[in-house]
């Protein structure tokens, strides 16, 4: 259960000294953007400054021509934008104004402004028309950073669609909403905003920040009114599992431009590990809420999806809403799952899952 479906991190001592984003090159290609330093893999190298050469069968196997990796200077490289990946996400900051009890990427209070530059360079060089995820920390925490990031992309006429994962609090500021919208006129941007409650009580506890719910809701109203496309994300926990369908109904009744809702099973990463016993609740205790939520999709005319739910954990009736969602670099199946007829349609498990009691012990479909 620990082997991911796609390997993304590699070590090669020839990489020592190479730092920051590099583009993997497998053949001479004039159309590749000159912006990033190049790493020529098992092929002839040009002589330009910033070009490196590397023979590495493993990286060769797990990458495609034009992919982008971040090198750490100590010989390690992580492929962050890959044409082989089912989802590409870039981290643009590790700072956040929420401190979610289940944060998978706990914030660090360091100056990491460079990450926005890396991300902009990488997106421009990768030049894809497939959606790229932008996550943090809180990507909208420093408003001038994110707006500059958009300006940089626009300067290179890049139109890569972006999915930005944000707590939405920044949208409380209407001027910011206006600028954000204006800078993305030629780009599709979908903002994923988590809402964990129908009132401040459960939400503010889960994100450990008093006043967060009010700012997120005000932000959602402003952003939606401006026409910014929004995805609402809900994570059921012991604190809010009874109000899942009420959250769905509330945001869809009150807010504009919500185009999808994602209900996500808790991931055992970061702080969720230490708070697991206070937070995690098995889906069987809130099946009715899941069914009710999913079946609101038609009523409001939007997509509702379940993420990170192995099919054997939810009722048959809502299987069609479950997505194969876990990013391939952290996705795995139990050996037992090989006997299950639904395995091809199933999203499986996180590689990080260690508590056996949520694994498919009881019911192999």
């Amino acid at each position: 259960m620990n082997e991911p479906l796609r390997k993304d991190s590699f070590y090669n001592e020839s990489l020592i000294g190479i730092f920051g984003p590099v583009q993997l090159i497998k053949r001479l290609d004039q159309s590749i953007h000159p912006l990033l330093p190049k790493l020529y893999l098992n092929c002839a190298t040009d002589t330009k400054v910033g070009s490196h050469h590397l023979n590495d069968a493993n990286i060769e196997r797990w990458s495609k021509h034009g992919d982008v990796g971040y090198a750490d200077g100590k010989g390690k490289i992580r492929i962050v934008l890959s044409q082989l990946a089912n989802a590409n996400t870039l981290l643009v900051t590790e700072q956040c104004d929420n401190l979610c009890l289940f944060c998978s990427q706990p914030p660090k209070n360091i100056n990491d402004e460079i990450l926005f530059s890396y991300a902009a360079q990488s997106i421009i060089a990768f030049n894809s028309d497939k959606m790229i995820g932008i996550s943090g920390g809180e990507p909208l925490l420093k408003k001038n950073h994110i707006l500059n990031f958009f300006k940089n992309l626009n300067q290179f006429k890049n139109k890569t669609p972006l999915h930005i994962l944000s707590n939405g609090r920044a949208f409380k500021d209407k001027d910011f909403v206006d600028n954000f919208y204006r800078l993305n006129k030629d780009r599709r941007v979908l903002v994923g905003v988590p809402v964990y409650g129908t009132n401040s009580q459960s939400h503010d506890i889960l994100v450990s920040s008093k006043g967060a719910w009010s700012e997120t809701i005000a932000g959602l109203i402003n952003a939606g009114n401006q026409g910014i496309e929004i995805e609402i994300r809900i994570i059921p926990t012991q604190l809010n599992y009874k109000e899942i369908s009420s959250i769905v109904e509330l945001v869809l009744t009150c807010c504009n431009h919500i185009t999808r809702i994602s209900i996500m099973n808790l991931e055992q990463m970061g702080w969720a590990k230490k708070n697991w016993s206070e937070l995690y609740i098995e889906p069987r205790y809130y099946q009715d809420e899941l069914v009710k939520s999913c079946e609101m999709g038609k009523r409001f005319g939007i997509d509702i999806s379940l993420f990170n739910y192995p099919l054997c954990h939810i009722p048959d009736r809502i299987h069609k809403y479950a997505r194969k969602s876990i990013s391939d670099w952290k996705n795995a199946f139990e050996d037992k799952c090989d006997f299950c007829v639904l395995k091809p349609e199933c999203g499986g498990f996180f590689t990080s899952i260690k508590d056996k009691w949520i694994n498919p012990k009881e019911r192999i479909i």
Partner: protein
Amino acid sequence: MTNYSLLPFNFRLLPDNEVLISNLANMYHVLPAKADLENLIKDIGSLNDDVISKLEQKLFLYSQDDFETKVQLTASAFTKRINKDLSSPRLIMIVPTLRCDHHCSYCQVSRVNQDLSGFDLPLSSIPALINFIKKIESPPYKIEFQGGEPLLAFEFIQEFYNQMLLEVERDDFTIIIATSLSLLNDEILNWCRGKPINFSTSIDAGIKAHNRHRKLITKNSFELTQKGIKAIEKKLGKGKVGTVTTVTHQGLSGWNELVDTHLELGLSEMFVRPVSSYGFAIPKQAKDITIAEFMVFYRNLILRVFEDNKKGIPIVEHFLFIHYKRLMNAKDGMYVDLMAPAGYAKNSVLIDYTGNIFGSDEARMVYRKYGFDNLVLGNINDHNMTLDTGFSEEILSQSFNFDIPGCADCVYQGSCGSDPIYHIQEFGEPIGNKAFSRFCQLHKSVFDFVIELLKDDSNRLVLEGWMNE
């Protein structure tokens, strides 16, 4: 212990002592007893925790910390709802002829005999008509031919279609022909095949009543309609014909027969409403059936339809379904009669056989009877084509039902609409006295009925099934 306070709400006492409450966000909740309403107002703390959290989730209650946000959410829901009714598309109705082979007792437009001349839109007006359509609405266009009997002017429909093809993309318009089907023939069907053309026809409650009201010299209107529906299904396929049922006094016991008729014809959708009293239908029909009488019929009909659904026979009754969708804030709950601000001119427009432009079908009926010139918005043959919208604006500005006497405090305000043309006809002004309004009585009764149905889980599942189809 959190302290909760109330946000504004409307309420209505239901039979068996329950109380329905609603708010500006158009969320609803049923309190099991009148005493709960009193507790809600006097002592929220005495309600049980589950009720309190439900009411808080639906924006009836707020805790001090959340006051501002709950008000923002309510306001946002309110504007979202009005925007939905403001921005939905417009149905374009065309009356190519006023001539008709039928002589229906409840005809609202005073049709004329089929051999008369001077009651048709000339083919030469088609370019102006298409120009007008393109000017007032963006694609996809939804066009409905009415009458009279539009099949008496089939050549007009063909020519309109051909010219339309030259002006807009093929996928950018659909045509509905509202017809009794009595004049349907193979030539018409063959021409329609493969084109975006659907039919809408009438099947009244009770075959006897149908033939009695929808008069043909041959006295076989129903049989011809039945034959027409079968022919459409055979030649053009399923789902190309829809029905509208008018309920009159003579049909009041025919609910089972009506459902059976639909099922036998392979129809899984119906739309049933009482005879309406517009224009020329008034003296003959206004007193024909009361809303109370209609509701007895309608309850029996719906119970039968629900019974069938529970047995696995899929049949949808759209009049009820629309009321349900309005109560649920559903995305496609738009229906011209149930909008606030009203659908008049904004979501419907009708071009008469004279080229006159009206804001709704009802407006032309009232105009034809009373000659109320303000109702004519313009004429397609007028080259300047300036629509006189002053009067329409005045009408629409009085159709936001949240500040109308009788609607402002109604529990169904957020779901209901307003019908200024009906009220102009009945009361001489667009608001009218809701205590005596048939419109109000009808829709309130249907909303009450939906709320009653929703109490039973098996009925709720039927409605949810319709929604998720």
